[in-house]
């Protein structure tokens, strides 16, 4: 607690508070009541899209990274191609291809339209989630490739020499050390993912950014909705940063020379 009461932190806090008060008093917030429910819904949608796509994407990124770092060529090559294509094309394009390309093929098959899946396939969020997940997997697969490579060989040899089965080595030695090395990068990539979610508005999934844009278009008020949006994003990013710092401070602190 005392750590928070350092002079410079108090000063920064006061500056921040001043800014908030200035914004609250001199700017226009009369639109807020009308759009508040929409914003709440948007925030919720942003959060679950972010959480689900990051978790699923990371789950895909690990095998993708591993295959490239140490896999046989028949696994490494497809993983490599996947990551290159995903990282190499705009996410917007991917979202479009999934929704307007893949998604609009389904209705042409009557049996799909009749099936129980249709109410889900008809909606946009599955495509949004799919596109975001694959995108995250592509970027993080690349990060994990480097991370897996960076674990010193001796660490793995020790595990191998003790007869650890491969999956255990991966799970208990290789992955933890690899993830540790790239935690700051992963934290940044998660924040990037948060900022990539607005693209799903193009396929009618309305999250917080789209709500803010709509307020801007409806009312032509420029800065206020964006500032509110920034605040929401800052809170989310703060949560992400805290989460990652929490993980980072577990385990040994890096020994910093003199």
């Amino acid at each position, binding site marked *: 607690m005392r750590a928070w009461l*350092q002079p*410079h*932190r108090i000063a*920064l806090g006061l500056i921040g508070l001043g800014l908030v008060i200035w914004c609250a008093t001199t700017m226009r917030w009369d639109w807020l009541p009308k759009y508040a429910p929409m914003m709440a819904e948007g925030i919720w949608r942003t959060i679950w899209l972010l959480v689900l796509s990051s978790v699923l994407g990371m789950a895909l990124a690990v095998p993708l990274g591993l295959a490239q*770092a*140490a896999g*046989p060529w028949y696994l490494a090559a497809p993983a490599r191609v996947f990551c*290159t*294509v995903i*990282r*190499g*094309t*705009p996410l917007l*394009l991917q979202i*479009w291809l999934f929704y307007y390309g893949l998604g609009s093929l389904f209705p042409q098959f009557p049996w799909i339209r009749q099936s129980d899946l249709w109410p889900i396939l008809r909606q946009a969020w599955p495509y949004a989630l799919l596109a975001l997940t694959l995108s995250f997997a592509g970027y993080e697969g*690349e*990060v994990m*490739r*480097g*991370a897996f*490579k*960076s*674990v010193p*060989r001796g660490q*793995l040899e020790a595990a*191998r020499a003790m007869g650890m089965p*491969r*999956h255990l*080595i991966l799970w208990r030695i*290789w992955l933890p050390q690899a993830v540790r*090395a*790239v*935690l*700051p*990068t992963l*934290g*940044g*990539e998660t*924040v*990037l993912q*948060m*900022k990539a979610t607005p693209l799903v508005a193009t396929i009618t999934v309305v999250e917080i*950014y789209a709500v803010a844009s709509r307020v801007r278009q409806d009312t032509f008020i*420029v*800065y206020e909705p*964006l*500032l509110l*949006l*920034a605040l929401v*994003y*800052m809170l*989310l*990013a*703060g949560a992400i*940063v805290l989460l990652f710092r929490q993980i980072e401070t577990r385990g040994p602190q*890096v*020994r*910093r*020379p*003199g």
Partner: protein
Amino acid sequence: MGPLDLLALSPPGWGATLLAGLWNSLLIAVGAFSLGLVLGGLGAWGKIHGGPVTRDLLAMYTTIVRAVPELILILILYFGVTDLVNQVLIAFGHERIQISGVAAGITVLGVVQGAYATEVLRGALLAVPPGQVEAARAMGMPPLLMARRIIFPAMLGLAMPGLSNLWLIATKDTALLAVVGFGELTFATRQAAASTKAFFTFFIAAGVIYLILTLLSGWVFARIEAWARRGEPRNAGG
């Protein structure tokens, strides 16, 4: 008109427009990425070795700048700040000034890239075995030389994937500069698509251009990484 006519280099084909857009995108991406690297390097160094005030300020920098959408930053910098400066200038009887939209765009993108690069480089910096640094220190290397000759090469291998991600993001984030009236690849694509209604043709064309760009830069990044990892034995399959 068929897709090939639409993509022809001279009007009514849009090829020249797209290529000009690509060139602009590259200019901005290179500018922003370079600025980001410099800021990221300084930020990472400060986060690890700086005092408590430096660290808190940098934490704010990375958290806020990464969190706030680039659109807001550029609107505030390009319109808000210009407006403010102009009001002051006019109050004192001076002429209005006009910030260059491109400069504002590169600055904003670079500052944002810097925040991400800070974290990428910080992770890589922390992963450099302390013994490597100690050896340099014990031999009396000055910090800058040590950073350049020992630490930088040692962290490069791990930083490369994160940096290459950032580079690719920089090439695509240039779309933001449409707000300040700058036509780069994404904007040119949309323009062409909307004018001709040939959405599919142009988006695929842009996708292919980006993909080629990715392959080329991927090759460069891979070469750098291989060079950085030349002294490391390969981790064979588990």
